[in-house]
């Protein structure tokens, strides 16, 4: 097990280094005149040149990359060119916001998907049909459209939630819940549709197995068989899908955070990339790269924890 973890961490490090190099090169290739964009259309050419020098943009590319790498090894990710905030601080504060959305969405997906998937598989009939239709709709409608619809109905027309912004939990638990409710729902619906189908399918497969018939013949109640045995076997593949969705939710948060004006990683990633804020984008690449590597590792370990049959020796 330890060797497996070590191998995964090592490959993760290689991956993060590789995407850092690629991201750096891509940013410079498509970066255009960053100093000009920073200063705007009215700045003189001399001022732009002075700013480029101040930011080190007039140095050779490998030298700039070397400085950035040296900074990373000293724990210094640099300072945002467009907000003057240390990159580490910017990412930490925003990662917390995004992860609270993503964790919230993951919990919602897990709970609702298990309920719907189990109901569809065990009850069948119109319930199964309804769940399948809802899943299809959930998969077909883009998350941003759902978000916009939720804002119009529940925030603007009904006034139940705040249409934009984020409130810290420690400031107001109620305000926090109100500020993340709609984004979490918008973020979850696609995932609920996918994971529900996965659970339904896995449940149906498991229900046809011989051991289920055996357990039932020994007098165990259907509820006990489904919840203690069938769901447990069906949970493995569902968890794998949930893990993939978790990573996908980080991507989905980019749009959702824009719509709800939530100060998360997604919002800042879009802004920083369009501005050419290289230190901030590079910091985000590193942070999300590490996060995804760790998440995949956790999902692998969780699968073994839930199902001894897939445990690694």
């Amino acid at each position, binding site marked *: 097990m330890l060797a497996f973890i070590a191998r995964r961490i090592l490959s993760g490090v290689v991956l993060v280094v590789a995407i850092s190099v690629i991201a750096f090169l891509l940013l410079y290739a*498509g970066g*255009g*005149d960053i100093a*000009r964009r920073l*200063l*705007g*259309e*009215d*700045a*003189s*050419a001399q*001022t732009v040149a002075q*700013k480029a020098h101040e930011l080190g943009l007039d140095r050779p590319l490998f030298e700039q990359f070397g400085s950035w790498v040296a900074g990373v090894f000293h724990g210094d990710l640099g300072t*945002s060119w*467009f*907000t*003057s*905030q240390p990159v580490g*601080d*910017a990412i930490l*504060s925003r*990662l*917390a*916001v995004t992860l*609270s959305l993503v*964790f*919230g969405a*993951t*919990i919602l997906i*897990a709970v609702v998907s298990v309920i719907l998937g189990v109901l569809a598989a065990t009850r069948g009939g119109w319930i199964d049909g309804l769940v399948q239709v809802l899943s299809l709709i959930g998969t077909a409608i883009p998350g941003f459209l759902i978000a*916009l619809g939720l*804002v119009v109905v529940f*925030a*603007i027309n009904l*006034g139940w939630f*705040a*249409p*934009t*912004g*984020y*409130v*810290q*939990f420690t*400031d107001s638990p109620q305000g*926090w819940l109100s500020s*993340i409710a709609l984004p979490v729902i918008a973020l979850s619906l696609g995932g609920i549709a996918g994971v529900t189908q996965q659970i339904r399918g896995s449940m149906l497969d498991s229900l046809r197995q011989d051991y289920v018939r055996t357990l039932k013949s020994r007098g165990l109640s259907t509820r006990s068989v489904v*919840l*203690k045995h069938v769901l*447990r076997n069906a*949970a493995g593949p569902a968890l794998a899908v949930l893990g993939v969705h978790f990573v996908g939710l980080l991507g989905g948060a980019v749009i959702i955070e*824009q*719509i*709800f*004006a*939530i100060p998360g990683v997604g*919002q800042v990633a*879009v*802004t920083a990339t369009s501005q*050419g804020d290289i230190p901030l984008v590079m910091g985000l690449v590193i942070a999300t790269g590490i996060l995804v590597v760790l998440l995949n590792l956790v999902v692998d370990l969780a699968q073994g924890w*839930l199902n001894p049959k897939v445990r690694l020796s």
Partner: protein
Amino acid sequence: MFNFRKRLVTALAASAIAAIALSGCSPAASSAGSSAKASGGTLTIGTIVASTTFAVNNSAWANESPYLQAVYDTLLHSDPDGTVKPWLATKWSYNSDKTVLTMKLRDDVTFTDGTKFDADVAAKNLLRFRDGTSPQKAYLATLADAKAVDATTLQLTLSAPNPSLLSFLSQNPGLQESPAAFGTPDEKTTPVGSGPYVLDKKATVVGSTYVFTKNPRYWAPQQQHYAKLVMNVYSTPTAILNAIKGRQINGAPLTDNSTIPQIKGAGYTANGQQLNFFGLLLFDRAGTTTPALGDVRVRQAINYAFDRKAMLKAIGQGYGTVTSSIFSPDSSGYDKAMDSYYTYDVKKAKALLKEAGYGDGQITLTMPTSSGFTPATYALTKQYLGDVGIKVDEVNVAPTSFLGDLLAAKYGSTVMQLKAAPTTWETLTLDVLPKAGWNPFHTTDGTVDSLAKTIQTGSKDEATKAAQQLNEYIVKQAWFAPWYRPQQTYATDPNTSVQTQTGNAYPYLWNFVPKK
């Protein structure tokens, strides 16, 4: 044997706790959840960019002016119509050739760190701004020296007269920062000024929400109309619209005028002003890369080719005023007659082209296209020019390179929106003079130079007359082919009254007042 349900519940509970704990890790939160009220307590406004820096020497004005005005004072103030008024400087006078400006300063102003404001501090701030990397650095390009004559007398020496200097000193070149903060590691994120408010760093989420509390020792408390300011950054027009519809903000700029009916429907007022001109910039007036543009008749034909009213309706949703001039109605060079100088006249355009020796399809203009403007803009440009026999060769340029390419004289003409500056001299230094950034081919013209000299050194009356003559000359010489001045809209809720500021996208902070 493991209990599956127990594990699942444990895992979900752990995730929930992690989510809550993580949310609590955030250093601060947006206050956008609270509704805006006319209590005079909190003013919540939307902005479209974050503060790049609070270090005055590198600061940017326009979209960032609210952040800076909250924490800093300027040497001078300007009224909504641009009239310069005393502020930290109470009196001022020029010498006879307008190269020495002497200002009398207040003696009762203290920065929030306890440092006293005086003429020496003001001189240091001005020189530091001149040598910094602010986008508006060129405003002080002619500042040769600044020195304190005594504690309350400041003397500025100029290498050449600057007719817009007083106006500039009411903007970021005139901001006063405590010298104790100069060069400190957190200068860019921790402002130390003498202004009406203080940045609440604990409640601020950099890049997203900036919170300011009242400076209790402010020397002009009549300017503090609110106890607290909240500035929320919205990166999309949809987010601004949703914040307005949800009554979360007292005011915000609209980046899309098509939302005006919706914001009015939400009970907000659309405060309009005209800050820019939109149309074609005909850079290559000497015909260096596009010989045809060197002929004034071709440039005039281009001006006659466009139906400006139709362009305004199609692209600007009808919000704005058609014009043939780049001069702002607020500037001394403005002449209403120049707004309608060029009419839509295809016959005249064709005749001018023929007179210049160009037949149908013999002129091709290579123009860059950018995602910054709508495809309809480019399609209409191509169509109108095509109707008079001018071809357009479009080159798709990445938005990241668009400005740089234009200013590097890579194209002889382009679709562009530029600032219609509130002062004539600013218009000249931005767009007209040989060294102006938006004169990338460095066009020189004896008449322009002569009139510019009068504007720079003449009396007020002489300068005004010369400014209007210059406007007319540039229009007739067709240096540009503007279509219209688009309406810039600032929305305010029913509880807030505001006066828009000439030349600035945001109303000045002290002009936000709660309605009684």
